């Protein structure tokens, strides 16, 4: 019975978060339009000058843009969680008979929904500008599954940071870090074109194996051990962030 209650509470909180999204049109537009603008810029403005060893730069850059889009979306989760903590709405929820994790769950699930809508739009625009993936149905399902896993992982991580940082301004600074990671990865240029000091970081950070796996599934490039590394990174971040977020929520709201 408690599971049913928890699910019902979470559904209410998801609806609340999605309603906020619909009402904050400018935030949603920014989260969706900025990755699209970045893709158009990288494909048309920088693409011709980039030497990535591929015939069409658009085929190289799309996985990175999708993860960047997920970063934008997850960043807003940190802001909304911090906003709730700051405005005292959590204290009101505490006086109601609802599951404690439902509030955070609402933010995370809404973030995943928002991100999937944004990802679908980015993929649509990618097709429009000449992206031509060479993937079977199984590879498409695997690629989208990995995207969802990545979105879930960073959404929970963002929620945890939103709880930790307390203020919207501090949470905003965290989103900058989230957006910085895809740039120093194989998202836009191959890691071997970077200076040796950066290569080590770019090759071993969590975003690179996810991008290389997506590129392999969609474009048929070698995946090697990247798939397992991607799942390990995303799974590890998801489990740790979930546990940390729930612990932080209980700690922050117990006083």
């Amino acid at each position, binding site marked *: 019975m408690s599971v049913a209650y928890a699910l019902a509470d979470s559904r209410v909180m998801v609806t609340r978060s999605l309603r906020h999204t619909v009402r904050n049109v*400018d935030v949603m537009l920014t989260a969706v339009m900025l990755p699209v*603008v970045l893709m158009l*810029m990288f494909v*048309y*403005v*920088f693409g*011709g*000058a*980039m*030497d*990535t060893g591929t015939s069409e730069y658009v085929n190289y850059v799309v996985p990175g843009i999708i993860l960047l889009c997920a970063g934008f979306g997850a960043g807003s989760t940190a802001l909304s969680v911090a906003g709730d903590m700051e405005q005292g709405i959590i204290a009101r929820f505490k006086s109601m008979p609802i599951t404690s994790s439902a509030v955070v769950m609402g933010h995370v699930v809404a973030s995943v929904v928002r991100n999937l809508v944004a990802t679908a739009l980015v993929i649509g625009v990618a097709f429009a500008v000449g992206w031509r993936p060479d993937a079977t149905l199984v590879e498409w399902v695997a690629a989208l599954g990995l995207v969802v896993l990545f979105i879930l992982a960073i959404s929970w991580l963002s929620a945890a940071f939103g709880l930790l940082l307390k203020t919207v301004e501090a949470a905003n600074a965290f989103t900058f870090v989230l957006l910085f990671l895809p*740039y*120093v990865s194989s998202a*836009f*240029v*191959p890691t071997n*074109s*970077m*200076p040796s000091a*950066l290569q080590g970081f770019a090759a071993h950070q969590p975003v690179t194996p996810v991008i290389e796996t997506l590129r392999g599934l969609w474009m048929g490039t070698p995946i090697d051990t990247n798939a397992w590394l991607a799942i390990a990174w995303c799974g590890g971040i998801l489990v740790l962030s979930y546990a940390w977020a729930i612990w932080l929520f209980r700690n922050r709201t117990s006083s």
Partner: protein
Amino acid sequence: MTAIQTERRPQLAPASLSRASFAITWRNLIHIKRQPEMLLDVTVQSVMFVLLFAYVFGGAINVPGGGDYKEFLLPGIMVQTMIFSSATVAIGLTNDLQKGIVDRFKSLPISRSSVLVGRSISSLIHASIGIVVMGATGLLVGWRIREGVVDAVIAIALLLLFGFAMIWLGIWVGSMMRTVESVQGLMFTVMFPLTFVANTFVPSQTMPDWLQPVAEWNPVSALTQACRELWGNGPAATTSDAWPLQHPVLMSVVWSIALAAIFAPLALAAFRRRSRD
């Protein structure tokens, strides 16, 4: 019964335009001193762009005619820094109008235009700090001025002239918009294509055919090319037949004067309208 002596109040002589403008410039600069984060756009943000393009993307970007990408990049980043100054002036002016500071200035015996002159001078100083920071960053990453002192000074003068023209755009937007958020949104929409669809970061020849003319006739491209030629950075514009890139110094002056001639009257009219409300 003695008559009441009415003492005449001394007349307050209106401050000269230069004195009032200096006072308002000083006020705006004190803001920077009290809130150093106001310099983030021309310091940290620009340095991040240099490091990102020089070290992360630079290795994969081909400069036609050879040459070091870092040398090609720095003039473009400096032009971008000047363009960002228009956003600074727009946000600052909207903030003053929104908070009622300009209404308070109206009650003082100062020329109304001194508010704009002061704002534009402080914004130029703000942008100049950015140029100094970019120059220092450039020297650290390997950029050098390879031509004479006179050419180097002419390039800096062109940057400041263009910055002055862009400030009028900022004043116009700042006077038209009601909130800081809407100013940020609009300035981002204007500055994003202006700075990126140009030869700022990559040569225009590498862009698709339909985009090349847009980039070549973009005022930012002419100014960037002028700085590259005057500082001796990167390849000459001979690979492009576009007139603005063949005569970049002349076109930079023409664009700056044209933009100032268009936006200064619009800005003054908008500011008068807004400060009458």
